[in-house]
């Protein structure tokens, strides 16, 4: 337990110490929230969708969590390159514990990031519908965070260096985000996009978050919860396996 705690603590300390990283990673979500939120607001309103900020905010919160979580997982590559990973791997500790400690740490950091974006969206006019459901939304934030941190860990276990980073950014994270229903409703879309959105893990995270924050879940909260929980367990298993295979 203590070992998982110290690994978790390390992630948290590293996060709060790099102020530039916190501010930097808030830039993109903030820009999207302002530009898209106010830019498409009038059209969305005219089309009968209601307040676009209300629709958009859960999507942007999910995005913030997605990016922070994947990067936290991918940080293992830095640890590999800067040697710190050797220190943990040569210690008399099971790889599973190391993986869990790191994933919990990365996940916590991602949830904090999500909460910061949530607070920013409150400032620009977002209003969650009920306090009780707000608590439930933290469960969805945590699930999104855990899933994508574990995914990042799995990817980082396979990659040798940061060269593949751009690839992940453009061919994994961006599509995940754009095709998740974070920016637009999933009703009445071309079949291909609907199909992609259905197999996109983030869709269920966005949907769950939207369902608990402003109502109007597309898949239904229970489906969202079950799908996310199951795939999180699966990816944790895959990540642990790949992590246990790392040779340095």
């Amino acid at each position, binding site marked *: 337990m203590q*070992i998982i705690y110290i690994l978790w603590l*390390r992630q948290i300390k590293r996060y709060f110490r*790099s102020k530039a990283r916190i501010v930097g990673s808030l830039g993109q979500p903030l820009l999207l929230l302002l530009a898209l939120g106010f830019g498409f607001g009038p059209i969305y309103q005219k089309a009968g969708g209601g307040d676009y900020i209300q629709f958009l905010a859960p999507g942007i919160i999910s995005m913030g969590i997605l990016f922070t979580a994947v990067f936290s997982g991918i940080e293992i590559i830095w640890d590999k390159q800067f*040697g710190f990973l050797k*220190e943990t791997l040569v*210690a*008399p500790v099971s790889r599973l514990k190391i993986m869990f400690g790191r994933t919990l740490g990365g996940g916590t950091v991602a949830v904090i990031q999500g909460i910061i974006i949530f607070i920013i969206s409150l400032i620009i006019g977002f209003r969650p519908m009920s306090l009780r459901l707000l608590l439930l939304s933290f469960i969805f934030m945590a699930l999104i965070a855990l899933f994508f941190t574990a995914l990042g860990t799995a990817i980082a276990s396979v990659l040798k260096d940061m060269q593949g980073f751009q690839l992940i950014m453009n061919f994994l994270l961006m599509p995940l985000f754009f095709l998740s229903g974070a920016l637009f409703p999933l009703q009445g879309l071309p079949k291909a996009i609907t199909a992609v959105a259905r197999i996109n893990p983030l869709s269920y995270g966005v949907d769950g978050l939207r369902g608990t924050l402003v109502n109007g879940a597309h898949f239904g909260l229970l489906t969202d919860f079950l799908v996310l929980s199951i795939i999180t367990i699966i990816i944790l298993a895959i990540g642990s396996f790949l992590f246990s295979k790392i040779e*340095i």
Partner: protein
Amino acid sequence: MIKVENLTKKFGNFTAVDNVSFFVNKGEIFAFLGPNGAGKTTTIRMLTTLLKPTSGQVLINGSDPVRKKNDVRRSFGIVFQDPSLDDELTAQENMEFHGVLYNVPKDIRKKRIEELLKFVELWDRKSDFVKNFSGGMKRRLEVARGLVHHPKILFLDEPTLGLDPQTRSHIWSYIKNLNKEEGMTVFFTTHYIEEADKVTQKIAIIDHGKIIIQGTPEELKQQTKTTSLEEAFLTFTGKNIREEDVNPAERMRIRRRIFRH
């Protein structure tokens, strides 16, 4: 303390360590001397559970690094060739992290960390971030960190590489002290012949993955009828091993070959 028999490691067709045998007694300082790419680091990685040997037998403090990983891991401390500290943490936090990973009880941990940081003269810098440390300070911190859990054996992979002469002699005086006072067994690799000559009881010269000869520095000198270990080394390997003489491209090639696998 360390017993190695017919140890071999192959990466594809390339044999990095070729049928190596040696033993190190309790309380001895043992040096692995050889040029870059000779197989020193690969051997250390096998002794410290990071790499599985292709064949051969290894016993560290009576346990096999392949089958009894955690027993072996508890018994040694290690200073890697490349830095392995967390730059974003303070000196003390790095030590603390290590102590928790090795399950050192809290009160002992606290005392031990203070004692060790004072020993390597970093106590007054304990709350500074490691990223602000010089190369020598980092290396000293790594030596101290490797000792938090009272290991029986200390592995040092090129512990003084890239450090200035003062810092080097500093580090060696700590290590000799430890060896004398705590009876710690020390296994280190180096390509600085003077170091091997000054601090060790036993030396093995390794080149192209093979141990060419082993014995005390005196024995090696006597066998070649030379007065310095450097000359003895030249007689055995027929070449000089200074870092400058290995061209960088060759060094990269060897490194890559070893780390790609």
